[in-house]
């Protein structure tokens, strides 16, 4: 019993192998190019062998390597056998995919348990584990869409999306230039800067503080994306109207967060400044703004996502014949779903990089904050 508990993934993978053996072959009888006997046998040997190895008393790095190689080689052989046989996979095929997945799971579990001795090894593990995790989402996606023959329109396999992505780099790059480098960056910078400036102004002028802030709180909770068609009417089809949408979307979160941040400095710290007869601007720059930085970076992070959404969705309402939102809305109409997915993948990468840069800036600026000190 304790032997099984040592690697329940291995035990389950063995059971799945037996079930798959019972329900061979792995492709339907009318498949044009069925698995060769050698390939099928190799897959079973790989999966069963790795599953057995997971019970053995061997060092964690060696075991992880065995599991890694066997699980991925098996998955590669399985998916490779699908070409020309889309939609013909039987339950034996899916059982074997599931068994490989369990082995990869075991591999990640073993890797997570390793205490890295050197810094480089630690970084390598920190990158490898989420990469494996993400890769298996793609592997399962690929196997299920192609094995079960899911219609291309509903969900294309990642390989098709990747091929489309690689084949349309010039178009995608032009879209990124139009949407990101013009609309998003301009709108983000202007929106955040003006939200910040108005927050400082509201701090100085009671009339703004009492009148504008409640409205700011209200507006920052509204789905402002609805103004996109109006902005297109006002500022035309080109990127200026999208930048306007981004400005409106990013302005209020920055305003509200900066005002909250300016109130974050403690009363003792303020009394200290008062005891030095410090003037308004000295107190602002030496105490209140540094204390507000965690709030301001919070707004910058929220806004990095909002800006991307705003610019892409605003392009649905009219645009010149370039732009990420334009591409998504026209290609879905032409049933080119792989292009839509390619555009989404690009947006995801750009969004992550954008967010990552802001987060790095935050780490450098608010290193002193209790939530950042340890890491």
């Amino acid at each position: 019993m304790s032997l099984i508990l040592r690697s329940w993934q291995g035990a389950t993978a063995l059971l799945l192998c037996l079930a798959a053996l019972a329900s061979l072959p792995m492709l339907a009888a009318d498949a044009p190019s069925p698995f060769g006997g050698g390939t099928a046998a190799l897959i079973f040997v790989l999966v069963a062998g790795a599953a057995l190895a997971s019970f053995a008393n061997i060092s964690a790095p060696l075991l992880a390597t065995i599991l890694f190689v066997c699980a991925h080689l098996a998955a590669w052989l399985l998916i490779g056998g699908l070409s020309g046989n889309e939609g013909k996979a039987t339950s034996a095929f899916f059982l074997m995919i599931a068994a490989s997945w369990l082995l990869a799971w075991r591999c990640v579990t073993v890797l997570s348990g390793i205490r890295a001795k050197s810094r480089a090894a630690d970084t390598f593990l920190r990158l490898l584990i989420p990469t494996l995790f993400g890769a298996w989402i793609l592997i399962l996606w690929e196997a299920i869409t192609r094995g079960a023959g899911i219609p291309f329109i509903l969900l294309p396999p990642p390989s098709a999306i990747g091929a489309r992505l690689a084949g349309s780099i010039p178009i995608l790059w032009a879209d990124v230039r139009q949407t990101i480098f013009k609309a998003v960056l301009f709108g983000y910078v202007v929106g955040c800067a003006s939200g910040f400036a108005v927050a400082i102004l509201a701090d100085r002028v009671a009339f703004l503080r009492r009148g504008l802030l409640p409205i700011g709180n209200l507006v920052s909770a509204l789905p402002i994306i609805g103004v996109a068609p109006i902005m297109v009417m006002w500022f035309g089809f080109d990127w200026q109207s999208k930048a306007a949408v981004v400005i409106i979307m990013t302005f209020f979160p920055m305003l509200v967060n900066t005002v909250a941040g300016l109130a974050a400095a403690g009363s003792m710290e303020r009394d200290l400044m008062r005891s030095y007869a410090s003037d308004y601007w000295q107190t602002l720059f030496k105490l209140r703004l540094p204390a507000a930085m965690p709030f301001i970076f919070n707004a910058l992070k929220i806004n990095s996502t909002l800006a991307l959404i705003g610019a892409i969705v605003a392009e649905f309402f009219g645009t010149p014949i370039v732009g990420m939102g334009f591409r998504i809305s026209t290609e879905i109409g032409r049933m080119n779903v792989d292009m839509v997915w390619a555009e989404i993948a690009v947006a995801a990468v750009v969004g992550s990089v954008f967010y990552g840069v802001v987060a790095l800036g935050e780490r450098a600026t608010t290193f002193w904050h209790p939530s950042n000190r340890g890491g």
Partner: protein
Amino acid sequence: MSLSPPPFSVVSARKLGLTFETNDGPVHALSNVDLEVRKGDFVSFIGPSGCGKTTFLRVIADLEKATAGEITVNGMTPEEARKSRSYGYVFQAPALYPWRTIEKNIALPLEIMGYSAAERRSRIERTLDLVNLSGFGKKYPWQLSGGMQQRASIARALAFDADLLLMDEPFGALDEIVRDHLNEQLLKLWARTEKTICFVTHSIPEAVYLSTKIVVMSPRPGRVTDVIESTLPAERPLEIRETPEFLEIAQRVREGLRAGHSYEEQ
């Protein structure tokens, strides 16, 4: 201002009162306080919570405004005194800015008051040495112990040329061993710098050990019940706390607190 404080008077209060208006009616934080602090004095304010000792310190610092009576600080109103930067204030907590290193924290008042970079450098050096923190200037506050942080905040208050040091229970949050050590250091520092110190505490031994003058206060309304001039010598090793003279003064402080009904159930 019509009053003329005696020469060498640093703080002079006449019939000082302060009433906070709250939803539950007025609270008399201070009432009829008369007090004279001379240059070079080490004055302790002692009493239970709510007796107005911190409020009195905050009135001197112009962090609160008196509602009755008169007070001068260095012969000026508290506001003028604050604007001419005549005091350094040490709070109950270190209140160091976590985004500045220790030396940058000490430089903070110097930057605000417009000292030159070279002047800042030498003053940081000197005050860090005064509080025995040399070598810790590049650390961030959260990398130091509580006692070291409070010493750094004292260094910050000493960095600019204020002859008056206002300390509001600066060692209240520290354990007794650290506290004894810091009390000893504070006395040495006071002797070296010849500053006037107003020190709020609720520890009788601390008040007696440190002070040349002990002001006993009691609550509801906050008022002064006794002012005791210490007869202890200027040189005070920690062992002085075992002498009959010390215990006699401590006894008098205790009686003063009792007379102000400070020991009654509240």
